[in-house]
């Protein structure tokens, strides 16, 4: 029973952390982020299984996490209001070439990061952007002007 509770707590805690650190931090995967991801995985594993090296322990922990993942996914699908809390909502960053500075500040995004995102979408100027939306995944969608 203990390992199931540990796995559930680890799932909830990581979910909680990913919701509060900000979506931009999670969307980028620079080399440092990749290493931190591996380190985090190792820390979580130790907390969940501790000195349990059994296959039973693996099945219990991995099964619990998979079930919780499906449960969160179902709740996201079924309840719109809960989805807003669990998954977050998009935020408009550019409207008709005009950068919405307050919305940038809210997500701790700089104009430089926005310009970088635009370049990655083959847009050489923010003025050519009709809409830029920070999605709940942390990615920025750019819709160019016609």
């Amino acid at each position, binding site marked *: 029973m*203990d390992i199931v509770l*540990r796995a559930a707590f680890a799932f909830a805690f990581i979910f*909680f*952390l990913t*919701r*509060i*650190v*900000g979506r931009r931090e999670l969307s980028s995967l620079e080399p440092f982020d990749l290493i931190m991801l591996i380190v985090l995985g190792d820390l979580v594993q130790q907390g969940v299984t*501790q*000195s*349990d090296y059994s296959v039973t322990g693996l099945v219990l922990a991995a099964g619990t996490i998979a079930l919780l993942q499906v449960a969160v996914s179902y709740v996201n699908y079924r309840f719109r209001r809960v989805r807003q809390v669990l998954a977050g*909502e*998009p*935020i*408009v960053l550019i*409207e*008709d070439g005009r950068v*919405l500075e*307050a*919305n940038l500040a*809210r997500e701790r995004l700089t104009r430089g990061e926005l310009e970088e995102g635009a370049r990655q979408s083959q847009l050489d100027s923010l003025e050519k952007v*009709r*809409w830029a*939306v920070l999605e709940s995944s942390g990615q920025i*969608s750019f*819709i160019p*002007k016609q």
Partner: protein
Amino acid sequence: MADQPDGIVLRRHRDLEGRFWGPWLRRALLALVALVAILGLVGVFGQRPSTTSAEAAPATLAISAPTAVRGGLLYQARFTLEASQALTDATLVLSSSWLDGVTVNTIEPSPLNQASRDGSLALSLGHLPAGSKYVLFMEFQVNPTTVGSRSLLTQLDDGEQPILAIKRGLRIFP
């Protein structure tokens, strides 16, 4: 004014109506995470040792051990005994809470005898001359499933005769 993309509601996603609390909630929750880290820094979750001592006419006993530990951690308890008078058969009696859900890795130096005394662990240390000092190290490891608070009672006897006792607390975090 450009028509917004499907799924975007300007009042909510551009003007952020009803979403004022979002950053503040996020900051508050981050502060909570920071608070836990700070509590960890100051040793609330273990395993900084603290010393408790007791004195009686024949001897003094000091115990240095953490009062908070976490599941799976190794920790040490050091028992320092100073005899003012000769003790014929100095015996440390540890309540079962010292050992329940905790693995004893080693006891150094090894006691002359170990026995159960009404459910407690009695460690016979032998004869201690007046003015002598005896230091006993016990190394423990918390079993991963053990959690909760407990009271640890340690008694110093001379044979069956109680000399002094020390009561300490131990919190075990999961």
